[in-house]
């Protein structure tokens, strides 16, 4: 697994803020997220539920849930263009072809009343200009590409006639049918059986190798991160607190939160002991502290942690952490 770090940057996110504006107050779900994604790379976005991972993804697609969510600040540069400034019509051109997404739950991601062929064709027809190949054949080819057996028969079936793993493959086929440069995978294997999970991850890897697309892989599972990703960004309470190459993060995590997360991953070897857990709860996103957001749960907390946010510190080659106690390199 050699990260192709030479690729050009295809997606650049700078200081992204997406908040929920509710009657009770403002929920700062994404509050200053920055990262970049290069061609052919897999960046893992890791964090516990509710830390803003999924909302970050939806902000990139500009498909925020209804009910007060707005991206109020930041830039999302896709091939040099800030897509936050695009019109809805331009956005529709971009979705599916430049940036696409695989959702978490295959059981609900496909429309139950249309055949998968219909749903696949919709995606194919949109991006076709005049390729000459019949749509039907292209749809079959797309299914074959995601390793679905007997695609000619499957194409006329409804989602409920397929297993979860197969549905997720179809979702994958739909997502990449426009040959996007960036694919966001939002916990694509969480809802699948463990054995199917592995197959799906391998499939994603293979498709990536074939197309050279960049993948933003969202997960809460550090085990999957090690298997899939070149780099990893750890998110906590609306911000990325540490980002770096996978190996560096695993071997020398700098942020106390990352260290705690990695300590809580069950090891395959060694004694079966108590798993480390992190005491306490993350701060309310409606009422964030001025200082470090992890301070209330951190074992090494000091006065300066409570007084001000530490800021992003470069701690090594491509490795940054938001902590007062790390040594800048």
């Amino acid at each position, binding site marked *: 697994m050699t990260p192709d770090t030479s690729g050009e940057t295809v997606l650049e996110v700078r200081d992204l803020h997406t908040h929920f504006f*509710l*009657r009770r107050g403002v929920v700062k779900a994404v509050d200053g997220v920055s990262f970049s994604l290069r061609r052919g790379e897999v960046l893992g976005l890791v964090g*516990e*539920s*509710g830390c803003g991972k999924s909302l970050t993804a939806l902000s990139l697609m500009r498909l925020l849930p209804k009910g007060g969510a707005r991206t109020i600040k930041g830039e999302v540069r896709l091939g040099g263009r800030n897509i936050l400034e695009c019109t809805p019509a331009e956005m529709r051109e971009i979705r599916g072809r430049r940036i696409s997404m695989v959702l978490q739950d295959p059981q609900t991601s496909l429309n139950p009343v249309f055949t998968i062929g219909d749903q696949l064709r919709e995606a194919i027809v949109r991006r076709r200009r005049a390729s000459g190949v019949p749509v039907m054949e292209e749809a079959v080819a797309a299914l074959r590409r995601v390793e679905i057996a007997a695609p000619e028969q499957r194409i006329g079936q409804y989602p409920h006639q397929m297993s979860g793993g197969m549905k997720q493959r179809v979702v994958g086929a739909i997502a990449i049918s426009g040959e996007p440069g960036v694919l966001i995978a939002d916990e694509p294997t969480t809802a699948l059986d463990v054995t199917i999970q592995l197959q799906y991850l391998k499939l994603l890897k293979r498709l990536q190798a074939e197309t050279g697309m960049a993948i933003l892989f969202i997960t*809460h*599972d*550090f*085990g999957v991160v090690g298997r899939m990703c070149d780099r990893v960004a750890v998110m906590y309470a609306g911000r990325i607190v540490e980002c770096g190459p996978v190996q560096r993060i695993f071997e020398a995590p700098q942020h106390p939160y990352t260290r705690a*997360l*990695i300590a*809580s*991953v*069950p090891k395959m070897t060694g004694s079966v002991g108590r798993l480390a*857990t*992190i005491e306490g*709860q993350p701060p309310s996103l409606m009422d964030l502290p001025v200082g470090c957001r992890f301070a209330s749960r951190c074992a090494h907390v000091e006065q300066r942690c409570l007084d001000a946010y530490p800021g992003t510190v470069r701690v090594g080659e491509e490795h940054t952490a938001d902590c007062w106690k790390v040594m800048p390199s």
Partner: protein
Amino acid sequence: MAVVERPSSTDPVAPRLSLWRLVWPARIPGGFRRTSRVPWIPIAIISAIVVMALFAPLLAPYSPIDQTLRDKLLPPAWMAGGSDKYFLGTDAFGRDILSRLIYGARVSLMVALLALTAGGGVGLAVGIVAGYVGGAVDSVLMRLVDAAFTFPAILFALLLAVTMGQGLGTLVTAISLLLWASFARVIRGEVLSLRQRDFVALARVRGCSAPRIMLTHILPNVLNTFMVLVTLNIGVVIIAEATLSFLGAGIPPPTPTWGLMISEGRGRIADAWWVALIPGIAITLMVLSVNLFGDWLRDRLDPRLRQL
């Protein structure tokens, strides 16, 4: 697999039943629905009608039954030819419409009270038993519910009126038949999910008998839903009562009911519209108020019922 989740709390004890909660419910925990404003206008209208019904003999200016034929078909007081004596005018027999309206509220509310107690009670019992016992009992009861839904109860009501004769008993029976199935269906759904909860399992482990669990653990927990259903169905009952009276299958004349008043005024629509239209306004206002109040109550007590 490092899954860091917030600790979840389950409730090993059944929430205590408090009558006060029915009157002034606590906010639904974790509910993020904006609490809608208290519907003061509907509450005022409902209260006014309830007061009218309770104190009808004191409030009504005239007897609702006695006929004054020389004063027949007088228009309401504000219209040309209207008399100050009869604020809402008189009908073809010279009876004061306001007085009949006030007494009619009595009938509507009485029928609503009785039918909701009977029909709602049966539905509650069927729903709890079907949901808790399950199995064959459940499927038989639910088939019956499906059947009741398919067949319009109003036809049975008409049949009852013809075979058993008109009267309060027939009317209440007929309307109860209309109600029980929808109560049973919703309550059963609620019980099915309650059955999975920890406090029920705990009660079973402690060795409580099935009837005891249903009475002390299940029943208190479906009362909120029951109250919402009762409120949402008051309008259904009032409309059904009026419809049956209109069709000549309600409480027989001369007892004033709103439906009957409309029926009697129907033929006079060209020269005395007030006889038929005024009671209809009363029905619409009442049903509208009760429904708006019911919607609000549902949002407060049991937002999951929104689909109804």
